[in-house]
């Protein structure tokens, strides 16, 4: 009986909301046009530099130092060159391995830490939060020397693991702060209800909290992946053997050896950008399903 009353109440609510929308909102067509204009403006700003990169990557014999907006004699030569004349494939694999370590490490460690600081009150909690913020304020460029000594002492120079662990450390402070917000946004009542239903801590964690913070985890994963994929100075310092280079370091080779071959540089840049895009499109679906679950539970 109460279920039927609920349904009736929610139907009444829906219709009141619809009426209020009609009253308050601008005309539907104007709203649509506004949104379309907004989307167009954003896409223009975001994609223009990207288009510039692509146009230059597909241009034959690009000697001009300012790129080109219209590809001259469109060709795949730049890509063929980048992929065949050198070890770019190896760099891609190295970067992928480093990125996987970083993403998994950052997600797991940051979620655990975020639950600790968002859900428990304990001594030194504030001190730890402040410390986590402080450590990431040091400019990375100044950390190169001490970090190098540290990784060398751990005997992890020239290893994917060594670079991955450093990137986990770099992304952790932000990841913890980001996750903290998402964990804190989950109402405590949801957890308490699970406890009352007799759920244990781990069950509550995986069945209740995890789905609700999934969007946060996805954001953290993307964020950690991009750090690992694009970071340059540390990768250059720690990976001293050329078969251990990451893509960011590999990209530099095209600047060094072919000073004016912008076509090669931009083709390599395009290839570097692609995996991040693929990764994002993959997790995007998961992001959406996490959101749907959140909506159902909310």
């Amino acid at each position: 009986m109460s279920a039927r009353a609920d349904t009736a109440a929610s139907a009444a609510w829906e219709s009141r909301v619809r009426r209020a929308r009609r009253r308050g909102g601008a005309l539907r067509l104007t709203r649509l046009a506004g949104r379309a204009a907004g989307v167009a403006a954003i896409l223009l700003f975001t994609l223009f530099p990207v288009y510039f990169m692509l146009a230059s990557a597909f241009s034959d014999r690009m000697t001009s130092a300012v790129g080109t907006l219209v590809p001259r004699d469109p060709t795949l030569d730049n890509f063929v060159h980048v992929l065949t004349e050198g070890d770019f494939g190896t760099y891609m694999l190295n970067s992928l391995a480093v990125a996987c370590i970083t993403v998994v490490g950052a997600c797991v460690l940051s979620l655990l830490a975020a639950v600790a600081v968002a859900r428990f009150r304990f001594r030194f909690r504030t001190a730890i939060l402040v410390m986590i913020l402080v450590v990431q304020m040091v400019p990375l460029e100044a950390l190169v020397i001490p970090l190098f000594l540290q990784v060398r002492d751990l005997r992890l120079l020239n290893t994917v693991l060594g670079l991955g662990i450093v990137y986990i450390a770099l992304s952790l402070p932000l990841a913890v702060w980001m996750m903290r917000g998402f964990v804190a946004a989950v109402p405590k009542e949801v957890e308490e209800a699970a406890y009352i239903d007799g759920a244990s801590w781990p069950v509550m964690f995986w069945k209740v909290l995890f789905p609700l913070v999934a969007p946060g985890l996805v954001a953290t994963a993307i964020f950690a992946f991009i750090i690992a994929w694009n970071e340059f100075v540390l990768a250059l310092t720690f990976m001293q053997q050329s078969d251990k280079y990451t893509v960011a370091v590999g990209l530099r080779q095209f600047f060094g050896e072919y000073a004016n071959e912008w076509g090669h540089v931009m083709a390599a840049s395009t290839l570097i950008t692609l995996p991040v895009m693929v990764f994002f499109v993959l997790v995007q679906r998961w992001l959406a399903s996490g959101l749907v679950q959140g909506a159902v539970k909310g």
Partner: protein
Amino acid sequence: MRRRSALLPWVLLAPALAVIAALLLFPLGRIVWLSFREYRLRNLVSGESDFIGPANYVTLFTDSYLWRVALPNTVGFAVVAVVSTVVLGTLVALLLSRLRPVTRVVVVSCIMVAWAMPAVSGTYVWLWIFDVDSGVVAQALKGAGLLGPEGYNWFADRLFFYAVVVLNVVHGGFPFVAVTVLAGLLTVPRELHEAALLDGAGAWKRFWHVTFPVLRPVFAVVTILSTIWDFKVFAQVYLMPGGGVGGSEMLNLGVWTYVSSFGQRDYGMGSAIAVVLTLLLLAVTAVYLRALFREDELR
């Protein structure tokens, strides 16, 4: 039960704290130590360094370059860049939240390209766009008759130089804010918005009184992070013409640290600049944190 719950947060924190302590806290200590020492190329070779007290700091603070160039460049740029990034990112997130799911996926994927683009490549593209005489901007201005055939060197002027850096940094930085705020927006209960709508609240009021309070922690995080990133932005300045040259008018504190350490081989001074930048960021963040504590957001 009581004992277990007292220990649990530490168990959850342990792995993260171990990694942070070993790879960030300890190196940070080394930088502070280094900043009180004379540490140049010969020290790097011999491995010995001399304790010189606060001499590096005295030199730094009595150098008019800090007050005239590096500090204004750093702070002025960061304020403009953070405000632009957060406002644009939030506007885009609000727009995205009103799109149909399929359209949203497409648009989000597109703006992610800007974030995914390596900073190095992105910087070169922005350099092309603003090239002195054959850049897109110069060509357009010439076409409109606003610029003579000699072109204009945007990078010789501090204001224009940093305007280009702002465009570059906002281009690469707003997708993070947009995606994070969007993920937050979708956790805001729909009923709250609907109730406000029934009370006759307009779009701005609904955002300010409903969305913003709920997403306060998310906004706090994206603002603090953007602040931290923009205060120590490196590649986007270093790679621009004049940006990586010692003594130029374009250095910010982050690039200055690097130029001192690796350009002038004065690691002690480089570390001192890094410590000053860190303290500056700390002071700025303390202001945010105070605001958070007052609101009891650090639950």
